[in-house]
């Protein structure tokens, strides 16, 4: 498995890419144009090598792998020789200092390409380490959060089967309710965990199709209303239809989790409102409540899965650590962001964004979400 990955990476170094080829051609063309202009002004020749050296450095930095940098340096050497040194418009290899120019350009290309590649690898390693961290946190939260309801279910079931008829009916009914409540909770937790399996682990991405935001929000709120009586859920949506590419099942899960979080943890909340709006090239979803807000010291670790239920005093409200960290995983796999804040008047507001345009290179959007 590892060897295959490595092989792929090596292949990618020499893989032809239209983007990289285009960038190389563009930079070299710009350098040539600049040299022509400078020659027309009058003091060209001395700067030609410098300009091309800079162009080669630029190509090496912006393209991936060694190929384009080296190619640019070869083109540069011949270009300089052909067009900008006497005799003009002819190749002449007996020029003094010629090997030096060639070697310098080649060396710069190799050096900078190497640095760029190494930098990219480091970024990937950092990312992998962060992913690993998140996974470990999640696992810790899971083992804690799953064991508790499992213990209570098996405990209640064994009490019932051993003492059936011996304890009064009211007590039996209470135990049964506990069992079904905990089972419901486990179902939701497992659904949450399973939803992560829909995310492509290697590329941390999801299959996206354009979906109508209103449909997803409606269904999430419909299910919330079935499960919780209070706080009352409201929807605020603009008249226009907002479409965004997404994995609808996952985004519904996010909204459901945020609503559930409000229902279980927003103390004293009377309403929770889902708002959708379009801002530039992003669809912005907000889930806001008028409860007690989030404790300030919990805010920074809210989405790590580590904000576990250690100091959750209410017996019935289990930790949403897993739910929130799943939300963050889902949203970042969509190329969006998830944030939480306290509203000045009291209450918490969770906000997540989804890019409404597919792919990169939408200049008018200006949302560069490189990781």
């Amino acid at each position, binding site marked *: 498995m590892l060897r295959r990955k490595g092989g792929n990476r090596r292949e990618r170094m020499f893989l032809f890419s239209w983007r990289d080829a285009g960038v190389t051609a563009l930079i070299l063309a710009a350098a040539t144009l600049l040299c022509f202009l400078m020659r027309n002004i009058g003091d060209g020749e001395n700067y030609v090598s410098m300009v091309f050296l800079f162009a080669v450095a630029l190509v090496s930095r912006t393209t991936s792998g060694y190929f384009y940098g080296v190619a640019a340096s070869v083109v540069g050497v011949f270009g300089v020789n052909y067009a900008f040194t006497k005799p003009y418009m002819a190749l002449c290899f007996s020029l003094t200092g010629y090997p030096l120019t060639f070697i310098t350009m080649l060396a710069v290309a190799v050096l900078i390409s190497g640095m760029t590649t190494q930098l990219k690898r480091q970024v990937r390693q950092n990312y992998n380490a962060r992913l690993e961290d998140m996974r470990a946190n999640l696992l810790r939260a899971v083992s804690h959060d799953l064991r508790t309801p499992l213990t209570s279910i098996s405990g209640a079931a064994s009490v019932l089967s051993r003492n059936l008829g011996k304890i009064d009916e009211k007590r039996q009914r209470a135990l049964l309710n506990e069992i079904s409540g905990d089972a419901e909770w486990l*179902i939701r937790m497992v659904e949450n965990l*399973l*939803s992560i399996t*829909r995310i492509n682990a290697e590329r941390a991405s999801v299959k996206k199709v354009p979906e109508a935001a209103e*449909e*997803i929000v409606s*269904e999430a709120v419909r299910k919330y209303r079935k499960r919780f009586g209070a706080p009352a859920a409201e929807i605020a949506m603009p008249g226009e*239809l907002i479409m965004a590419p997404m994995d609808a*099942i996952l985004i519904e899960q996010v909204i459901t989790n945020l609503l559930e979080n409000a229902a279980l943890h927003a103390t004293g909340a009377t309403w929770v409102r889902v708002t959708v709006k379009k801002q530039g090239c992003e669809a912005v979803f907000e889930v806001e409540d008028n409860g007690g807000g989030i404790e300030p010291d919990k805010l920074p670790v809210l989405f790590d899965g580590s904000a576990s239920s250690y100091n959750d005093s209410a017996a019935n409200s289990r930790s949403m650590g897993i739910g929130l960290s799943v939300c963050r995983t889902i949203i970042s796999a969509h190329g969006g962001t998830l944030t939480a804040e306290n509203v000045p008047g009291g209450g918490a507001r969770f906000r997540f964004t989804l890019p409404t345009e597919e792919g990169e290179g939408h200049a008018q959007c200006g949302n560069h979400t490189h990781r």
Partner: protein
Amino acid sequence: MRNAATILIVEDDERIRNYMRTVLASCDYAVLETGNAKTALSIVASHNPDLVILDLGLPDRDGQELLSEMRQWSRVPVVVISARGLEKDKVTALDNGADDYITKPFGTDELLARIRAALRHGRQRNEGERTVFSGNGLVVDTERRIVRVDGQPIHLTQIEYKIVTLLCRNSGKVLTHDYMIREVWGPFSNCDTQLLRVNMANIRRKIEKDPTMPEYITTEIGVGYRMIEMD
């Protein structure tokens, strides 16, 4: 009311089968059950049940395959059991002739609601075409081409009207995106689901009292749309 209907449960997990049998028997349905595809086919052929509940993950055969084979000679309503997240399976099952699906893990109320709806569709199938549909204040008259909500006439575009009548004729059933596109725009159109969604958004703004919480046409995320039961 007596539920004389006979229901066949095809599910390999014994505990889930027990659970469903208990629930159905307590509602006075007659219950047949099997854990594999082979017996399922022979029971459908010999006992002619009124409804089949089919788990797609069977040990001896692919559930989808079983479904399409059964559809070649039987019109018995089929409710498929599928896991959440496997939306593609649901779409395939609906395309293969399933009448509805239920998502695992499901509750008792949901199970019974789906069974009642599917049984009703099975009966309606033998009644012939209707021209007037009404439910919850929405009235669609396909003979006079009139759509009303609470008595108020609603003006729909040609495409919107086609979508609404298509959903009415299959009220209570989930129609997949692809099926709707084929039926409304024709089999050779290269229309995408985006256009369907835009039309659906417009329809909802015209017929729903609260378009953010539609009561007539609900969304089945990742699968399609469902119109409420219309009489």
